[in-house]
């Protein structure tokens, strides 16, 4: 599409020759309908998506308590938030959660998907069972699990483990086991729906390669390792990013399980934002921390977008 010097003046002349915008012609050509469809879209996005984003940026530089008029305070909200000794703990906790979820929770859906794909019968039953936890409302599930995690020896998990001579474990009541307990719940809640996505991806794996590998004498494990997993590489990367983005915004689980305790061991960044805004009434600090978190997450999603776009183009 290189514009040669000769072509450029011609194009300019064509543009000049075009008739000016005519209102009736515009309406007849569907312009009116376009505006009609655009109004609800623009209003909803303006009020509930674009507006709040801009407002968030503005608020992070202001001091406001909703009663007195807001005043500009420069970077002081950011200084306050970054100087908060609790932030380091909350960031470390969030990172710890992300790490645990990645190490223990991440491989389970992949294993599940590979196994279910090999089934010749009843695979829909397996799928449905695996997906079931994803339709249970988290609040109900968390209340149920909170009861399962009862630290007494008569608690459900402890009494089951007791049959094998294990425990009783303190679960949520101990600062070292609280976070792993929450990760265990989150893995249960999320594994099935992630596995369904892997299963869909596995349906497109090129099976010719298995035959070729067989001829070369590769066993079942080597076929999985050298053919199945490499072909899932793309989906695995995407799910990893989505999981990271999700874990950085974790709220309901620590809020309902532990409220951030014991000893702030499950305090997360979003819980801090919630506390700044709705416990302390400090909307400036809350939005400042939101902006910082959003920057980190925006970076992750940009990576995600460009990498997936490259794949879809290929």
């Amino acid at each position, binding site marked *: 599409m290189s514009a040669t010097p000769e072509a450029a003046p011609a194009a300019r002349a064509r543009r000049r020759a075009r008739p000016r915008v005519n209102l009736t012609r515009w309406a007849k050509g*569907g312009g009116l*309908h*376009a*505006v009609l*469809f655009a109004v609800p*879209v*623009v209003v*909803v*996005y303006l009020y*509930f*998506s674009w*507006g*709040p*984003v801009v*407002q968030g940026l503005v608020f992070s530089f202001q001091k406001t308590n*909703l009663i007195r008029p807001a005043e500009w305070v420069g970077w002081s909200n950011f200084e306050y938030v970054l100087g908060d000794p609790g932030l380091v703990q909350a960031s470390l906790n969030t990172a710890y959660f992300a790490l645990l979820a990645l190490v223990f929770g991440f491989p389970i859906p992949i294993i599940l998907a590979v*196994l279910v*794909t*090999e089934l010749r019968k009843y695979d*829909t039953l*397996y*799928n*449905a*069972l695996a*997906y*079931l936890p994803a*339709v*249970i*409302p*988290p*609040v*109900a*599930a968390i*209340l149920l699990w*909170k*009861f399962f995690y009862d630290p007494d020896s*008569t608690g*459900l998990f402890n*009494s089951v483990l007791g049959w094998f001579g294990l425990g009783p474990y303190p679960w949520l009541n101990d600062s070292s086991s609280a976070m792993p307990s929450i990760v265990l719940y989150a893995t*249960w809640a999320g594994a*099935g729906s992630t596995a369904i*996505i892997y299963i869909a*991806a596995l*349906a*497109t794996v090129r*099976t010719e390669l*298995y035959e070729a590998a067989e001829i070369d004498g590769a066993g*079942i494990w080597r*076929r999985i390792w050298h*053919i199945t997993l490499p072909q899932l590489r*793309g989906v695995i990367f*995407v799910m990893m990013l989505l999981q990271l983005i999700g874990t950085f915004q974790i709220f309901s689980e620590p809020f*309902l399980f532990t409220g951030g305790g014991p000893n702030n061991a499950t305090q997360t960044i979003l819980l801090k*934002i919630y506390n700044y*805004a709705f416990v302390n009434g400090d909307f400036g600090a809350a939005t400042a921390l*939101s902006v910082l*978190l*959003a920057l980190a997450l925006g970076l992750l*999603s940009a990576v995600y977008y460009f990498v997936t776009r490259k*794949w879809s183009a290929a």
Partner: protein
Amino acid sequence: MTLTGKPSRARRKAGEAKERGVISTTDRKRPIVRTWFTIVQTILLIVLIITGLGPLLWSAKASISSSNAIVTEPMGIWFTPAEWGNLLLAWNGAQIGRSLINTVILAVGSTASTLIVSVAAAYLLSVLRPKWGPILSGAILATLFLPGVISFVPLYLTILDMPLLHIGLQDTFWAVWLPAGASAFNVVVLKRFFDSIPREYMEAAKIDGAGPIRILTMVVLPLSRPILGVIVLLSVVGSWKEFLWPMLVLSNPELQPVSVMLPKLAAGNSPLSVQMAAVFLSILVPVVIFAIFQKQFLRGVGSAGGIKG
């Protein structure tokens, strides 16, 4: 990546996969492979039944057991007599019935708002294509990058007092319905689907004298039924699971959905058996919806993953 390209290919591949996966037909005949496969398959089934159905069945039994039995011997409740009164107590006394109705209202309204706004946006960007379309499309796409966190607090303040209009939506269902409309992901999904509809259909309708609105309702929407179904299902279950946002904007107990009601119930001093009955009642509806529309759910989640990927 595109939805249209995928199903045919996926179906073909799925058909092939039925003939072979990692394990070939010859492998399957080998006794050692067969034994191991059966063992793994059985273990997997047991694990899935325990993790998938277990909590559900346990809460079903707990909802009709006495508090005392639940606390002292949580695994022994299978053998205690049923106390059906718990469910009634939860439904009436603990206002679970009222809050379940609220949840339904919220789910239906949020889904309608998502559908209306996303269909309008997708139709505009895919079919009408005004000159300023790319700007709008870019602005909607940009919100995909911005995590919800950044607008969370200002969105709450918007609900308290809408700029320019100065209307407060706090303690109205609109506070949940309207923000649900701004779902960029659904716009992208729908636009991709609309893009895949052959233009000839729309041209033909146009020649027959149909205007843009008739083309949408008579041609585009009927052809998009599968993707609309998936969006409806995922949106209903999604809003059934909402917790933080309804808790913030609906402070009136008369309006609160069951997800906001449950933790309050647990924090209060209602007996454990009633709590468990409430938990079970709130789980029941989405599970039944899933049981009925299982196939659509699983296909929808799989293909949505395809779009995401």
